[in-house]
């Protein structure tokens, strides 16, 4: 039955996507920046909208809207010897869960998930949570992110301090 086929293919897709998301969280928490950039397609974008109902990041205010170049810039900043707000140590820990496949075709998968993240800096811990929406390209080398949308639970803020690194 076609229903079974769908279920079977979704199960392996789901596993692939879950493993990808766990690995991405690990790469971020361990600051393996080269691998981070490698998770995205060449024109991939990391996007955190400035409001919950935003439909595109193009040409409007965003919290993050970064292509490879801007991500590379952010990496160069945090690794710079004079990035003094990184000096006292900056550690994060992500948990990703509730992974669901929204749609899949031969060359694309859209998946949603939920994340919780704690960040430690200057003797204090901050807490973030929200929803990821990943638009993946299926490539020979496996999955790559075309667009990662990050909807923060507290998108309106106010934010205590800023976000130096992606969530």
């Amino acid at each position, binding site marked *: 039955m076609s229903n079974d086929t769908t279920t079977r293919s979704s199960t392996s897709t789901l596993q692939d996507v879950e493993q990808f998301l766990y690995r991405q969280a690990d790469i971020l928490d361990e600051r393996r920046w080269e691998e981070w950039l490698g998770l995205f397609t060449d024109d991939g974008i990391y996007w955190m909208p400035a409001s919950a109902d935003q439909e595109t990041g193009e*040409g409007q*205010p965003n919290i993050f*809207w970064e292509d490879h170049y801007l991500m590379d*810039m952010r990496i*160069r*900043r945090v690794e*710079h010897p*004079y990035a003094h707000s990184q000096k006292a140590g900056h550690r994060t820990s992500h948990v990703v869960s509730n992974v669901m496949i929204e749609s899949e075709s031969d060359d694309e998968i859209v998946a949603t998930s939920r994340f919780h993240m704690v960040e430690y800096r200057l003797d204090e811990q901050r807490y973030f949570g929200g929803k990821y929406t990943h638009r993946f390209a299926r490539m020979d080398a496996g999955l790559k992110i075309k667009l990662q949308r990050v909807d923060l639970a507290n998108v309106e803020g106010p*934010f205590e301090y*800023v976000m130096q690194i992606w969530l």
Partner: protein
Amino acid sequence: MPLDQYNNLGSLVEPDRVHKACYADEQVFEKELENIFYKSWIYIGHESQVPNAGDYWTTWVGKERMILCRGENGDVNVLYNRCPHRGALICNNLNGNAPKAFRCPYHAWQFNMDGSLRNVPMKQGYEGVIDLTDPQLQMKRAERQETYRGFVFASLSEEGPSLEEWLGQGAKAAFDDICNRSPEGECEVVVNCFRIIQHSNWKIFLENQLDAVHPSITHHSTGDAAADMQRVYKEKTGDEPPMGYQFLADFTLPYEKWDSLDTIGHPYGHTLLAGYMGLRPRDPVTIAHEESLTAVHGEKRMDEILSTNVHHVLVYPCLSVQPPLQQLRAVRPLAANKTLTEIWHFRLKGAPEGIYDRSLAYYYHVNSPSTMVNADDLNNFRACQDGLTLEGGGDWVSFHRNYGQDPVENGITTSVTGMSKQPMRNMFAAWKEYMSA
């Protein structure tokens, strides 16, 4: 530090140094609210934030919570966010639309957008007891409200100079320079407010905005990273990198460049930084912008407008405005060591879209919650605040750089160098006057 050691709060300020209590003492902070924030004019919002009847935004004046709203008749009003019945906040959201009237969530008293009482449920209980037309039963309006070129201010004091008189030529430049850059002479807010809390005193932020010594040190990492990426971008694409990269790379301009800027101190503590990065490259966007202004004003006036050399205006004590990039940060002091900034940007009506793109790029790179610039500023502010809170280790903050060298004419101070601490001295001269009153 017990404050009764001082004859008056003005004695915390000397011409070239100020006492740490100005930043760290809660009693001084309370007095600042009373003498400065509740006496002067405070920016509430822009008229275009509330385009339709019933639209509202909430904000702060000191510890007071205020509403900016638009009535059926088109009038924009500033009200205290308090129900005259039992005192509940009427608007509990940051912004929204109240169709027809405000309706208190507690017992459903209803108010028109000018604060007047519109309806009370079960009126009979009040018959012969109180008069429902008594002004005491209205939402209270700000004591005074005035608007300059679409920018709405309120004063919680019945008395004092008019808004225009208080702004003076110095602070008016903030709004004139934004609006004049539009071929229609008007700007329009982009309805997005980034709210970021600084764990530091409100004055530390304002002082930093005009501290030309700090950028190449504080923002060294970001300036270098942006300059690297300008090179990488060119190599990989063969194209010019986006203008936003330049905004960031400019933070590490050499000292000589920062030194060549001018700071100008006006009455009431309003302070300007003039001279800036080139915002008139010969690209198609700039040329189209020039043409749009020339079509309205002719070439001479267009040139006058676009060569206006104001980079940054501090409208003391409540605003940091960057007119050439249409950025505005409102300062909301919450405690001696806690400051909320409300961060907005504007579109120039009738100007080419590419001009907005510049404003948006600056808003993103410098002012968004992911800013790589303010990441380091806010880190410094907090370090300052924490240091100033210490009992030992010294009592004073130094504003000595170029003290006694800045020329004064008709109450307006200019600086001999962009790095002079003249802006800080100018703001504290006003502070002292307010606090001694």
